[in-house]
């Protein structure tokens, strides 16, 4: 009985979507959603849950495939040459794409215009943290501390974070020594074990904020974090720089307007569904934020100039 009612609901929803909000377009076969990262990671989990919500809401068949490599570069390389019929979509994170576009744009087989941007799913909240007994509480204090004998060791796990600290160091004369790590878990370990003075963190630190083991020095985003509204951003603390990692979904350039409208509306609905909201809240400690097709395009174009600034170009 329950199955039947779900089926009927799904049918109704797809009718409503097909005839009302979504103009005429509907896929003529299954939609492939390519994930630019390995199975089991955050991007993969988000992508699969969005795909499932979209399937339930629209009745379309969506197949999720992992195409890891180069932080999404391998997947977007393939996506750029796929047929723009709305049945091949790709999901990635903006930062590695923007960094590679800025650093080696000429070598890449695609550029910003190779894609039609459909939606963002959420913005990761990136914080700078320190152990709670560290002798500083904000960026100014950290900079002061770094001017001591041994400098300040700062752990990071992605290029833009390193560049942000270099930017701050260049502007303030701080003596930051940047320690490359492979994951946020490793950074937390280094903080808790007292092996570094400060580090970046994208959510893994929140339980330690609650337990009082770590403190937050700044938000590295272009805005404060929902769970720590009293901690100012790096920008508010006097350095005109930020890192805004977004999870986004794109299609090969050249979608028809109908297709684009139908897909972005379906994505928007899926992203704001309860299941997706719960997974985003649980993994990223934030709300879903879909910027829509225009907003996502602006985010990517603006991102290139921001990342160029990080590189001092």
């Amino acid at each position, binding site marked *: 009985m329950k199955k039947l009612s779900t089926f009927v609901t799904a049918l109704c929803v797809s009718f409503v979507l097909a005839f009302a909000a979504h103009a005429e377009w509907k896929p003529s076969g299954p939609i492939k959603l390519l994930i630019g990262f*390995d199975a089991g990671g955050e991007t993969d989990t988000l992508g699969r849950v969005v795909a499932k919500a979209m399937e339930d809401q629209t009745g379309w068949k969506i197949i999720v495939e992992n195409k890891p*490599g180069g932080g999404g570069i*391998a997947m977007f*390389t393939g996506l750029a040459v796929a047929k723009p019929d709305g049945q091949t979509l790709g999901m990635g994170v903006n930062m590695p794409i923007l960094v590679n576009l800025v650093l080696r744009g000429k070598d890449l087989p695609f550029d910003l215009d190779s894609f039609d941007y459909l939606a963002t799913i959420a913005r990761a909240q990136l914080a700078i943290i320190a152990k709670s007994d560290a002798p500083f509480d904000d960026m100014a204090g950290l900079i002061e501390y770094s001017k001591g004998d041994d400098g300040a*060791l700062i752990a990071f796990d992605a290029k833009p974070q390193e560049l942000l600290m270099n930017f701050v160091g260049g502007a303030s004369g701080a003596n930051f020594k940047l320690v490359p790590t492979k994951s946020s*878990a490793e950074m937390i370990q*280094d903080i808790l074990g*007292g*092996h570094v003075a400060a580090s970046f963190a994208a959510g893994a630190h929140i339980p330690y904020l609650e337990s009082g083991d770590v403190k937050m020095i700044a938000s590295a985003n272009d805005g404060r974090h929902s769970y720590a509204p009293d901690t100012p951003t790096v920008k508010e603390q006097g350095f005109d720089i930020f890192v805004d990692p977004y999870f986004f979904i794109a299609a090969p350039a050249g979608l028809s307007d109908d297709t684009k409208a139908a897909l972005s509306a379906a994505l928007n609905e899926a992203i704001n569904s309860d299941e997706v909201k719960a997974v985003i809240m649980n993994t990223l400690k934030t709300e879903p934020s879909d910027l829509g097709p225009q907003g996502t395009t602006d985010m990517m174009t603006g991102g290139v100039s921001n990342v160029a600034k990080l590189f001092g170009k």
Partner: protein
Amino acid sequence: MPDMDVLLAGLSDAFSLVNLLFVIAGVIVGQFVGAVPGIGPVMAMAIAIPFTFFMPTLPAIAFLVGVNKGGLFGGAIPAILMNTPGTPDAAATALDGHPLAKQGKPVKATKMALYSSITGDTFSDIVLITISAPLAVLALKMGPVEIFALMIFAFSVIAGLVGDSMVKGVIAAVFGLLCATVGIDPEHGTPRLYFGFFELFDGLPLAAVAIGMLAVSEILRRLASAGSTPRSAITSLDGDDPTVSRVSWAEYWSCRYVMARGAVIGTVLGAIPGIGSTAAAFMSYASAKQASDEPESFGKGNIKGIAAAESANSAVMGANLIPLLVIGIPGSIAAALLISAFKIHGIQPGPLLFEQQGRLIYGLFGAMILANATNLIVGQFSLRLWTRVISAPESVIFSSALLLCIVGVYMSTGGLFGVAVMLVFAVVGYVMNVFGFPVVVFIIAFFLGGSFETYLTQTMVILDGDLTRMIDYPIAVALVVLALISVWWLGFRKKG
């Protein structure tokens, strides 16, 4: 002391029928995917995780734990029966497991693997359940400098496996390290040796290289040497004769020191995030060989070799959960996957986990014990099943194994690129074998090279580029001294 009510509630959750069924399902899936060359428990877990969001929390985690534990033993099956390990830690099992199977005792070899795997696993689970908190604090004290020193120590022990020719061993190790440098370098973000393939930015895909080198090259070798008359992939002399196929209590008991050492090595390396089961399996194997009165019998079907490798690589898993549960840090890919499963259920492993989710954690502990018991029982059936399967003509067995390797690598690396890498390394492995270069040494260097470089880079930043400053890190100094002693002792034993 934990609250008795919470503990009992957690355990009764674990021993509920639904949970039991999920554990059994997980173990069966795990043993199956572990035993099929090319697919592994890690991939099965990764695929299952998004679906566990739609399941209740404890059965979801219990299922994943079951898959993992089943896979730990399952991985030993193809390594022993066909000499085609799908993962590097099972390669250590193959060193003695396959020779024993070739002597006509495949059931005995797999049984020994099963018993020692469960012994090591249970030991590390008990450590996890009883003294995880102090151990996790100890693990936190291990910073990049200490872990770097620990890796040097591990290498110095494993060096005992280099084989007869030092020159060939060193060449294989250097080649492995070279392959580990492919991809974006950890310090400056410069892509190295990527030859225009963006797929290589993250380095050579580990699964593709391991399966190509270890499994596919062996399949190629067997297919190349196959004659026109069909013969079975392995001849089982034992049949149903229990005197050949069983592992007697005396034999099990004679491995007690080897297994205890393996379990301790696995537990220690598992509790410290960043090193993993490959190093543990080979370290345990190498030290068992060196401590033995008859080191020349290793590699020829000594059950102690199987016991050493399996007890260590299985002990890593339970101990991996120590940093995971207590401080929220995964020690391996499988542990990282468990964290994502926790996270999508809204549970953040970390300092408050035991207070906030005590019942769930005791439920998880109960499920782990349950999974060990299930593994033992299901294993008894599945090892017989697989030894039967393997007695089919070898042309059938090895061509289907090849197909499975291709499918597995296609799935886990996301496309044909990984398959191409696998085939290239299969040929490389074949050629290395023909010319007597030790493939195992290559694999160890390749798998540990990446993290070794990361820790070296971190150490150099922390020490300001001056290694003599390591003197300020007593644990690191002690480990380096141990490494020197071990190298000296190795040389001494060889001469003596």
